[in-house]
C-alpha cells in the first residue's frame, strides 16, 4: 500500500478495541440496570404471593 494511505488509515486498527469496548460496555451497563429492575420485581412479586397466602390462611381460620 502506498505509504501515505497507510498513514491515513494507521489509527483505525489500534483504536478498534476501544471503540468496540465503548459500545459494548454501554449496552452492558444498560442491561445491568434492567437486571436490577427485574430482581426488584421478582422480590416484590414473591412478597405479594406470601401476603396472599397469609390472607387466605387467615380467612380459612376465620371461618
Amino acid at each position, binding site marked *: 500500500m*502506498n*505509504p*501515505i*494511505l497507510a*498513514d*491515513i*488509515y*494507521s*489509527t*483505525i486498527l*489500534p*483504536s*478498534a478495541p*476501544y*471503540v468496540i*469496548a*465503548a*459500545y459494548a*460496555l*454501554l449496552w452492558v*451497563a*444498560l442491561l445491568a*440496570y*434492567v437486571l436490577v*429492575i427485574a430482581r*426488584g*420485581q421478582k*422480590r*416484590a*412479586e414473591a*412478597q*405479594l404471593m406470601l*401476603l396472599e397466602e*397469609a*390472607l387466605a390462611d*387467615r380467612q380459612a381460620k376465620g371461618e
Partner: protein
Amino acid sequence: MAPEGKSPRLPEAGQWPDRVAPAALVAGIVLTTVGFLMAFLWVPPVGGASVGGAELIGDAMVSQKLLLSQKIFYFHMPVAITSFIALVFGAWYSLRFLRTREARYDTCARIALEITLLFIALTMITGEMWTRFEWGVWWSWEPRLTTYLVLMLVVIAYFVLRGSVDEPERRAAFSAVVAIIAFIDAPICFMVTRLIPSSIHPVVLREGGMSPEMGLCVAVVAAGMLCVAFALYRARFRQVRLAQRVEALKEELGD
C-alpha cells in the same frame, strides 16, 4: 413523564405513560441502531493529525489520519444530553415534592436521579474509552471529563445522603434540596470549565465545529437514548411502586 393535571392526581404505575413505555423502548432501540449505522456508514470520518501528503479516497482529497475512535462521540454526547434531561426531571419532581409534600414525588425524583446516575456512568465509560485512545492515558483533567466526574459525585452524594437519614419525611426533604442544588450546579460546572482560559493546561474542545451530518447523527441517537431512558424510568417506577404497595399491604395486614 407523568400526568399532572389541576386535580391532585399523583403519578402512579399503570397510567398512560406505562402504555407508551414499550413502544418507546422499541423506538429507542430502532433509533439508536439507525444512529449507530449512520455513525459508521454515512457520516464522513473526522480527520486527526496531518499526514505527509494527500490521497484521493472516494471523491475527496484526504490529507489527515482518519479517526475511528471519534465515532464514540456519536454515543457519548447523546448519553450526556440524556443524563442532563433526567436531572432536570429529578429537580422538577423534587420541586413538586417540596411544594406538596407528597411522598410519591419523592419516589419519582429518586428514580429520575437513578436514571441520571446510570447515564452519567455511560458518559464516563464512553468518555474514558475515547480519552484512553486519544491521549494514551486513563485520565486527563480536561473540562469534559472533570465536569462529569463532579456531577457523578454529586449524584452519588445524593444517594449516600438518602442512605444515612432514617426518617422518611426528612430524607425526602433533604434529598429534594440536594437534587435542586445539583440541578443548579450542573450548568455552572459546564460553563466554568469552558469559559476560563487555561493556558497552563491546554483545553482541547472537540465538539467545536460539528458538520450537519454529525449533528443529525447525534440528534437521532439522542432521540433514541431519550426513549430508552423513558422506558427504563417507567419500568423502574412500576417496580418500585409494586414494592411500595406490597409493603403497605403488609403493614395493614399486620404481618
